[in-house]
C-alpha cells in the first residue's frame, strides 16, 4: 500500500468495509468503485482504483474475434493480433518513408508467390524459386530499416509484466501491467498502435502462426479432438471454426485483407480501455482523452446474423491419434443474458466442480472409471448461443463409452429428481467465492470488467450473472436439464488410440 494517507482512498475503503460487514459476509460489490466513461469517439473507458502496490493492469479489449472472419480467411483475427506487435510508423522503424517502399515491393512479390504456391503441381517451379529468392532478398533489405520488436523492448525496460494479447472467438485483448508512473507510456504506444499500425514482417509472422498451430493443435491430440468436435457441433455458425485458422487458410492469409479486417473492426465503438490499479481517475481520464480521442469513429458492419439451426439428431465423430482415449459431449444452449444460461453454470457446479460434485464422486471416486471429468458452460464463447460441454478421460481399461453412459445417467437424475437445497447452496457459494478470489488481482479484475463491457455492454455482467445464479431454483435446474439435455441436441467426439496406424 502507498504510505501517503490519501483521504479519498481511505474514505472509500471505509465505506466499502461497512458495506461488506453489514451484509452476509461474502457479499462484495464493485458498484461505486468502477468508474465508467465514454470518449468522444465512442470508446469506452473503465477505471478502478486499487492501491495495493504502485502498479496498474491495462487491458484493451476489442469486440472482434474469430467469429467475425469470413470463410477462407480463418485465422485472420489471431494473425492480426500477432501483427500489432510489429510496431507503427514511428515505432519499430528507422525511417518509415523509406521502409514503406520496400514493404510495398515485398507485398507484390509475396502475393505473386502465394498465387504460384497455390497452383501446387501445375505451377512453374522456376518462377516459384525466383519469387522465393526475390522475396528473401527484399526481406533482407527490409531488415535494414527495422528496429526489431521495439514496442516490446520499450515496455520491458520500463518494467512491464505480462505484455501479451489474446484472441478468442468473441474478442481480442491486449494486455500489459506497468509501474503506475508509466501510464502515459501506455497511452502513447497503444493509441499509436490503433492509429498507425504497420504490418511489417507479415510473411514471416504468418509462418510463426503456422508453427503455433503445429504446436498447439497438430501435436496435441486433445486439442485436435476439440477442433473436430466444434466443427461437428456447429454446421452454420463460425463457432465451429478454429480460432487459429484452418491450415489451408492460414498458409495464404493476405496482408491487405488483414489490414482491411483491422480497419473494419478495430473501431472505437468496439473498444474498451480498462485500467485497474494505483491511478487517479480524473488526471488519467484527461490523459486518455488526449491520446485516444484522436482515433476516428467508424461505421461498423452489420452484426453477424448467422444462427446455428436447431440440431436434428445426435452427431458422433472419432479422431484417431497416438494418445490415450478421451471423450467430449456437447449440448447446444443459449448464451447470456438468457436466464437459462445462469442455470447451466449451476449445473456445471453440481456435476463437476470439486470432490463432492456428482460426476467426480460417481466416475472418479466410486466408479474409478475416469481419471477426470470436467465441464464448461459457455463453450467456445459467449457472444452467441454456445455449448454446454463435458470432457472426460477414462482410466484404463475403462472406455469412453462407459463414461458416456454414466454422464447420461447423471443428466437423467437432473431431469427427474429435484436437486436438494443444501447441494444447490453449496454450488452457489462456490461460484460466489471463486468470484471473490478473482477480485484479488488488478489483472483479473481488468479481465472481467472488460469482458462484460465488451461482450454485453455492461461491466456489471459478472455481478449480474452472480445475482442470476443466486436466484436459480431446483425447479429451474430440472426444467433446463429436460429442455436441453436431449440426445437430439448433442454431439459426441471420442479420441481413439492408434499406434503406427493400428487401433489399440
Amino acid at each position, binding site marked *: 500500500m502507498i504510505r501517503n494517507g490519501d483521504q479519498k482512498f481511505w474514505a472509500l475503503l471505509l465505506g466499502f468495509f461497512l458495506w461488506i460487514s453489514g451484509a452476509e459476509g461474502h457479499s462484495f460489490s464493485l458498484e461505486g468503485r468502477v468508474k465508467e466513461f465514454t470518449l468522444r469517439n465512442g470508446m469506452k473507458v473503465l477505471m478502478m482504483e486499487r492501491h495495493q*502496490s504502485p502498479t496498474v493492469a491495462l487491458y484493451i479489449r476489442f469486440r472482434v474475434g474469430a467469429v467475425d472472419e469470413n470463410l477462407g480467411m480463418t485465422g485472420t483475427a489471431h494473425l492480426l493480433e500477432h501483427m500489432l506487435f510489429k510496431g507503427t510508423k514511428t515505432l519499430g522503424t528507422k525511417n518509415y518513408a523509406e521502409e514503406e517502399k520496400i514493404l510495398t515491393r515485398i507485398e507484390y512479390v509475396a502475393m505473386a508467390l502465394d498465387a504460384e504456391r497455390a497452383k501446387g503441381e501445375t505451377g512453374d517451379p522456376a518462377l516459384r524459386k525466383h519469387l522465393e529468392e526475390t522475396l528473401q532478398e527484399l526481406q533482407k533489405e527490409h531488415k535494414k530499416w527495422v528496429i526489431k520488436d521495439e514496442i516490446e523492448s520499450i515496455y520491458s525496460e520500463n518494467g512491464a509484466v505480462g505484455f501479451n494479447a489474446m484472441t478468442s472467438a468473441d474478442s481480442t485483448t491486449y494486455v500489459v501491467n506497468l509501474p503506475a508512473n508509466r501510464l502515459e507510456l501506455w497511452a502513447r504506444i497503444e493509441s499509436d498502435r490503433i492509429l498507425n499500425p504497420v504490418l511489417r514482417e507479415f510473411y514471416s509472422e504468418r509462418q510463426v502462426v503456422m508453427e503455433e498451430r503445429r504446436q498447439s493443435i497438430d501435436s496435441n491430440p486433445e486439442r485436435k479432438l476439440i477442433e473436430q468436435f466444434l466443427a461437428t457441433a456447429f454446421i452454420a455458425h463460425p463457432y465451429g471454426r478454429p480460432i487459429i485458422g484452418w491450415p489451408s487458410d492460414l498458409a495464404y492469409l493476405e496482408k491487405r485483407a488483414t489490414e482491411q479486417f483491422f480497419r473494419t473492426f478495430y473501431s472505437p465503438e468496439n473498444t474498451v480501455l480498462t485500467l485497474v490499479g494505483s491511478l487517479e481517475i480524473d488526471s488519467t481520464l484527461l490523459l486518455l482523452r488526449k491520446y485516444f480521442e484522436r482515433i476516428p469513429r467508424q461505421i461498423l458492419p452489420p452484426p453477424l446474423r448467422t444462427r446455428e439451426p436447431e440440431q436434428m439428431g445426435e452427431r458422433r465423430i472419432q479422431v484417431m491419434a497416438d494418445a490415450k482415449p478421451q471423450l467430449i459431449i456437447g449440448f447446444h444452449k443459449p448464451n447470456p443474458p438468457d436466464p437459462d444460461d445462469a442455470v447451466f453454470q449451476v449445473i456445471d457446479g453440481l456435476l463437476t466442480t470439486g470432490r463432492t460434485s456428482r460426476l467426480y464422486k460417481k466416475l472418479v471416486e466410486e466408479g474409478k472409471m475416469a481419471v477426470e471429468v470436467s465441464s464448461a458452460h459457455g463453450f467456445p464463447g459467449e457472444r452467441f448461443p454456445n455449448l454446454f460441454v463435458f470432457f472426460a478421460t477414462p482410466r484404463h481399461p475403462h472406455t469412453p463409452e462407459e463414461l458416456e453412459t454414466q454422464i447420461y445417467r447423471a443428466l437423467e437424475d437432473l431431469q427427474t429428481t429435484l436437486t436438494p437445497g443444501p447441494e444447490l447452496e453449496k454450488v452457489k457459494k462456490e461460484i460466489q*467465492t471463486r468470484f471473490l478470489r478473482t477480485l484479488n488481482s488488478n489483472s483479473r479484475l481488468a479481465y472481467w470488467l472488460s469482458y462484460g463491457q465488451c461482450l454485453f455492454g455492461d461491466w456489471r455482467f459478472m455481478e449480474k450473472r452472480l445475482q442470476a445464479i443466486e436466484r436459480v431454483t431446483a425447479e429451474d435446474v430440472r426444467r433446463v436439464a429436460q429442455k436441453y439435455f436431449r440426445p437430439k441436441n448433442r454431439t459426441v467426439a471420442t479420441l481413439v488410440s492408434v499406434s503406427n496406424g493400428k487401433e489399440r
Partner: protein
Amino acid sequence: MKSMKSPGSTNRRLSLLILWALLFLAFPVAAQEEDLLKHPREMNFPPLSFVPPEAERVVLPNGLTVYFMEDPEIPLVHLSLWLRAGSIYDPRDRSGLAEVAAKAWREGGTHDQSPQSINEILESMAALLEISIGRESVSLTLSTQTPDFRRALAILADLILKPAFDPAQLDLIKKKEIEAIRRSNDNPEEIAYREFRKILYAGTPFGHVPSIESVSAIQREEVQSWHRRFFKPNNALMGISGDFRKEEMKKLIRETFRTWERSIVELPYVGVPTPKDRKLIYLVEKDLPQSTILMGHLAPPLHHPDHIPFKILDYIVGGGGFNSRLTREIRSNQGLAYSVGSFYRGRVGFGVFGAYCQTQSSTTARVIRLFEEILGGIKKDKIQESELEWAKKAIVNRYIFTFSSSAQIVQQQMEQEFDLLPPDFFRTYPERVKAVTLADLHRVADEHLHPEKALLLVIGKENDFDQPLSIFGPVHRIELQRYD
C-alpha cells in the same frame, strides 16, 4: 503519483489542458500528433516511491514459523504451509511416494471424520485445501471466506495431527498416478522435459521418475511413516494473509497447533548432479509434424555469486522475450517457431540452463544449428552494452510487481527463509542487478555457458528432418515405454 503533487498543481495542469484543448481546435492535427508521437524513450516519468509492507514473523514454541500479514480489502483468508520434503527423498524403488503420500494425506480423512465428510464440510464453505509436491518442497494452501476460516483451519489441523490415510482413497490415488504415467507419452513437451531431467540429473534422485511398478509397490505403512517423518512444526513454514486481525490470528494459530509436537527431522544429503564432460545427443522418435528441441546443461546454483549475472545472461540469450537473441533470430527473423527461448533456474545445490524450441520437422537441424551459433556467439561476439542495459532495466523496473498482493509478499519472505537466503536477498535484489557489469557477463558466459558440452534432446519424426541428427554427433535413441 499523488503523493508528489503540490496543492496548486491540479489547477495549473487543468488550465494547461484547457489551453491545449483550444489548440486542438485552432491548429492542424499534425501539431499535436507530433507531441503525442514523441518517442517513448524520450518520455520522462515521475519517480515512484514505494516501501513494500512486511509480514510479521513469529516462531511458536514448537518450532513452527509463521508469517502474518493483514489485508482487509476482500473478505478472504489465505494460508500456505511449506514443508521440507519432496520427491528427492523417495526411495529408488518407491519413486512417487511423496506424491502419493501427500495426496493420500489430503484425501484420506481423519480419525474422527471420513474423507467424504471432510470434503462435504470444506465444499459447503467453498474452502479450498490443496497440496502439491515438488522435488525439495511440499506446499499446501487453504483459502476460505473470512467467517469460515476458523472451521476450515480446524479441519487442516485435524488432518495434520491425526490423518487416517483411508485405504480406499489411497488405492484411488495410486490408480490415478498410474494412469498419469500411462498417459505421460501423449504430449511431446512432457516427454521432453522428463527425459531432459532424467539424463541431466542421472545418478541423483533429481533424475528419478515414478514408474507403474514403483507406484504400485507403495504401501499404506510407507505413506503413514512419510507423514510422521516430514509433517513436523519445526520442518515447516506457514504464511497467512488476508482479512483478519493479526493478534487474534496469532492466538488462533498458537492454540490450534499447540499439540503439534516438534521432533528431529533428518533430511539426508542426496547429492547434486555432476556436469557432463561432452556433448550428448538423444532422440525420441514420435510421429509428429513438429519437433521439440531442448539443449542445456547445469548452471550456477542459487547461492553462487554468479547467480544474478547468469540470470541476466539468460535474459539476453532467450529468457527476455522477443528482444532476447534466440527469440529474435529464430522466431521473429526467421519465422521458424512460435515457442522458442531459454530458461535458467538456480536451485539450492545446483542450477540448470536450457534453450527450447518447437519447430516443424523439416527445420529441426536448422534450428539446432542456430542454437549452437547463438549460444556460441554469445561467447565469441560478446554482449553489447545496450543489451545489458536493457536487461538490467527490465529486471529492476518490474521488480515492484513481486509485491502486488499480500499473499505474494508473504510468499516471498517464506521463500527467502526456505531457500536459506540472506534476509535481505529480495530487498537488495535490484541493487545487485544494477551492479552487474559487462565484464561480469563475459566472464560468466565463459565460465558457465557450455554449448559444446550440452545435452541435446529432440522429440520428433526423424525421417522428416531436414538433416539427420547424426550430423551433430553420435545419437542415442530413447525407446518410449508403450502402455496398452
